C-alpha cells in the first residue's frame, strides 16, 4: 500500500460531504416523522484512537448502531450511531407513545430503529453519490447494540490503515420538544478515498 497522509484539504472535503449528507438524512427523517426536524452545524471530530468513544460516553457505554456496507465504485461503510434515550424518542414519535421512557426495546421497536437508521443512511449515501458522480450500492443494514468501543473499532480500524486519527462527522438534530442526537460516520477504504478526492478535484 502506498504512502498516504490526510491533509487539511481532505478533512475540509470530508466536512463538506458530512454537511450535505446529514442535511439530506435529516430531511428524510423530517418527512418520515412528519415533524419539523432542525439540524445543528455538523462538526468534524478528529479523534485519537484512545479517545474514539469519548463522544458517546466512553468505550463501555452501550450504543445503538446501524451499519451499511458500501460497494460499487466506492467501497467502505457508513454507520449511524445513537444512544438509547435518543432512540427512545425516535421510537415514541413513530409509534405515538410519547410517555414511554423504557431504555430497552421490543422486537418491533428495534426494527423501527433499524429502518430509521437505514432511511437516514440511504439519504446520506444518495446525496454523497450524486456529489461525486459515482454509483454506490449499499448492503442490507445490520444493527448492533453493544459497547461503543467495540462498535467504533470497526471504523477506527479502517482509518487506522491510513491515519493516526479517526474522522467522525457529528450531526445533532432536534425536534421542537425533544433532543435527539445521532452521529454519522462515513468510512471509505483507501482506494475509494482517493477516488472521492479526485472526483472533487483534489489529489
Amino acid at each position, binding site marked *: *500500500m*502506498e*504512502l*498516504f*497522509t490526510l491533509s487539511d484539504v481532505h478533512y475540509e472535503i470530508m466536512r463538506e460531504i458530512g454537511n450535505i449528507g446529514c442535511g439530506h438524512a435529516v430531511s428524510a427523517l423530517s418527512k418520515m416523522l412528519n415533524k419539523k426536524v432542525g439540524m445543528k452545524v455538523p462538526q468534524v471530530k478528529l479523534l*485519537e*484512537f*484512545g*479517545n*474514539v*468513544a469519548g463522544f458517546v460516553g*466512553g*468505550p*463501555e457505554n*452501550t450504543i445503538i448502531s446501524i*451499519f*451499511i*456496507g458500501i*460497494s460499487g465504485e466506492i*467501497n467502505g*461503510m457508513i454507520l449511524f450511531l445513537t444512544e438509547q434515550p435518543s432512540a427512545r424518542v425516535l421510537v415514541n414519535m413513530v409509534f405515538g407513545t410519547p410517555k414511554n421512557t423504557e431504555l430497552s426495546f421490543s422486537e418491533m421497536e428495534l426494527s423501527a430503529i433499524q429502518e430509521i437508521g437505514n432511511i437516514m443512511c440511504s439519504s446520506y449515501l444518495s446525496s454523497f453519490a450524486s456529489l461525486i458522480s459515482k454509483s454506490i450500492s449499499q*448492503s*442490507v443494514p*445490520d444493527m*448492533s*447494540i*453493544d*459497547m*461503543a*468501543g*467495540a*462498535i*467504533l*473499532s*470497526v471504523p*477506527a*480500524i*479502517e482509518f*487506522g*490503515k*491510513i*491515519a*493516526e486519527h479517526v474522522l467522525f462527522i457529528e450531526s445533532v438534530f432536534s425536534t421542537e420538544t425533544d433532543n435527539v442526537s445521532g452521529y454519522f460516520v462515513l468510512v471509505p*477504504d483507501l482506494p475509494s478515498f482517493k477516488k472521492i478526492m479526485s472526483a472533487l478535484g483534489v489529489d
Partner: protein
Amino acid sequence: MTIIVGMADLKVTKEPSSMLTTLGLGSCVGIALYDAQSKVAGLAHIMLPDSTQIQNNKNIAKFADTALKKMISDMLLLGANKSLLKAKIAGGAQMFAFESLNPGMRIGERNIEAVRRQLKLYNIPILGQDVGLNYGRTVELYVNDGSFLIKTIGHGNKTV
C-alpha cells in the same frame, strides 16, 4: 490501581495490586502476557494484523507483530523471563454481518490469526481465550495471579 490500555496502546507492570484493563474490544484483539514467577504482566490492544502490510506503521502498538515485540521487551526489562511468558487473548469479533462478505474487512478474524501466529513465533503458549463471534468485550488482567476477566453486554462474563 487500575491501568487503562487504550486502543492501539500497550502497558506493562509488576505492581501486584494493579489491574490492567482495556475497554470495549470489538474487532481489535487484547493480548495479555504474564510471567507467573516474576509476576510481570502486560496488556496490548492491537487494531491491525501486520505492520509490514501498511506504509503508515509508526504506531507500534497498533499492530499484532510490532506490539507483541515491544511488549515482550518491556516485560523483560521489568524482570520477566521470556521462557515463562504465557498468553491469554480476547476480542477479534465481527461486529457486523456485512464484514463477512467483504474479505478485506474480516479484520477480526485476521487479527486473531496474526496474534496466534506471532505468539507461536515467540513460543508463547495461549492458556485461555475468548475470541470471534459478534460482540464487544472488556478485559481485565490481574497482576497478582494473572487471571483474565472478560466482560460483555448480554453475553456473560468469564475468567480464563
